[in-house]
């Protein structure tokens, strides 16, 4: 039962490893960037999982709030909103660099780029 309770954290660890493997094992720049994106998403899941409070609702005060209402912790949600923005910027910047690499080298395969650099 305890293992099932940690379901989110297993998914977090799996996604983290999938992402990291994808970044390191792929020579195609776009595929590496996809891996990097998965790697970052794993962390979003970690933060979102930790803000869950048993029976907690969204942290917005309703007009007819009962006195014993429980809210989820809003802070990790706020933090991860920031981290999502950072993730988007990183991916966007990475893709922009990928476009310029394609313009300059005519390929986005890292091994081919390395070959071309060695010949230079």
């Amino acid at each position, binding site marked *: 039962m305890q293992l099932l309770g940690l379901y989110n954290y297993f998914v977090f660890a799996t996604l*983290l490893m999938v992402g*990291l493997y994808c*970044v390191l094992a792929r020579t195609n*720049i776009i595929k*590496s960037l996809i891996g*990097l994106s998965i*790697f*970052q998403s794993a*962390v979003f899941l*970690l*933060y979102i999982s*930790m803000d869950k409070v048993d029976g907690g609702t969204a942290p917005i005060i309703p007009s007819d709030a009962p006195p014993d209402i429980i809210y989820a912790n809003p*802070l*990790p949600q706020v*933090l991860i909103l*920031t*981290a999502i923005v*950072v993730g988007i*910027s*990183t991916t966007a*910047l*990475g893709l922009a*660099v*990928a476009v*310029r*690499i394609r313009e*300059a*080298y005519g390929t986005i395969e*890292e091994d081919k*780029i390395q070959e071309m*650099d060695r010949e*230079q």
Partner: protein
Amino acid sequence: MTLYDQLPALLIAVPLFTAPIAYLLRAHGLPWAAATAAVVMTFIISCSIAATVIGGETIVYEMGGWPAPYGIVLHIDALSALLAMLVTGSSAAALIFGAKSLADEVGEEIAPSFFAAWILCTAGLTGMVVTGDAFNIFVFMEISSLSTYILVSAGPDRRALVATYRYIVMGTIGATFYLIGVGFLYMSTGTLNTMDLAARLGDVTELRPVLVAAGFITVGLALKAAIFPLHSWMPNAYTFAPNVVTVFIAAASAKVSLYVMMRIDYAIFYKNIPNHELQLALLLAPMAILALFAGSMLAIYERNLKRLLAYSSVAQVGYIALGIAMSSVAGLTGAIVHMFNHGVIKGGMFMAVACLALRYRSVNIANLAGAGRAMPWTMAAFVIGGLGLIGVPLTPGFISKWYLVLGALEQGGFGAFLVMVILASSLLAVIYVWKVIEVAYFKEPRANAAPIEGEAPLVMLIPTWIVVLTGIWLGINSYVPVTLATLGAETLLGAR
């Protein structure tokens, strides 16, 4: 509330607000002027803050008036002040120096975005140094990293793009590791304020998540600081970035990650995880010793002058990591002083390289034959910087190595080995510095080589020499960095 009380906030606010303005200025030279004005102003602010904290005071500034655990505070002690001076000072010096070199390398059409990125990078690095909030450090880290990627990609060679891409991948992995660690810390304590974290971790009974956090944070920051063998992004990023960008990032950016590592590992984990100093030493000391030898050896066999200096930075980061691993006041003082001094030395050397690159159109060492006669002032600046890397007395490198050796001697039998390592690595530095000197002073230029226009323009030479003379002054009178570093080391270890 006087303006003086608001200085810590202005340290970040001034560059953050100037960045969009610089982006909007489209006239020739104006973006550069705006960037320089903003950065020089932050440098003056950080000097005035340093003058306050050198007496042992700590400035705590509540952002927006929200008190500590609820709002974000800026927490400036001696260590942060010293690093803030290094970051803003090197940024200002590089910009003032770089007007001509940048006009040469960075096109007119991308100048506004380039200088906006430069200001943001300065703001991010300064923010990392002064903030007292673990998550805020991540935000500023990403502001500085994203803008550094842009600066590096502005390099004239197409290989700059590949170097940027590697840097993005490695930098993001490092920052994400840090973020995971902060997540685990928040899970265990429910707070993000560094002071509050240090206090509340004492009550945490289940230490496993905290250990995991320590692992993720330390390795992530080691990746960002380019400690061997996690340095793979660094040599190419330094080599293919525009010369002036290299001056700035070589002097400041890796140092700030090392600062965060010290801050988190000592101020938070050291007191709360049993045997943390041993864990840190077992991780960092082997990496540092490898860095000292591998970095220097790679530098010895390198033919490109910029990459030679980048590999030398790998070795110099090793000295700093070694000081961090010692977990004693002397060792940490050495590490902190070396962060500052190495910034001054490497900044000056990369400035000299930028002067050479302007005239020779190449930074291959073989092409620099006769540079000692053609550009005597530039080469003299380079040689003085090189002596600093070796650690000759009267140069700043000597002061920091002196403290590192003192720290090593406190470690007993293993310390004697560390002293040998430090001395051996300094000897290797003699070899790679001599390699450049030999070509520049004692080789005749090839007969068919194009004649050199002569010395670099004064607008570049004067800032270079100001930095070099600052270095010499720090080698003779090291009161400011050593006092701030000792205070910082004592605070980190909780000795006061």
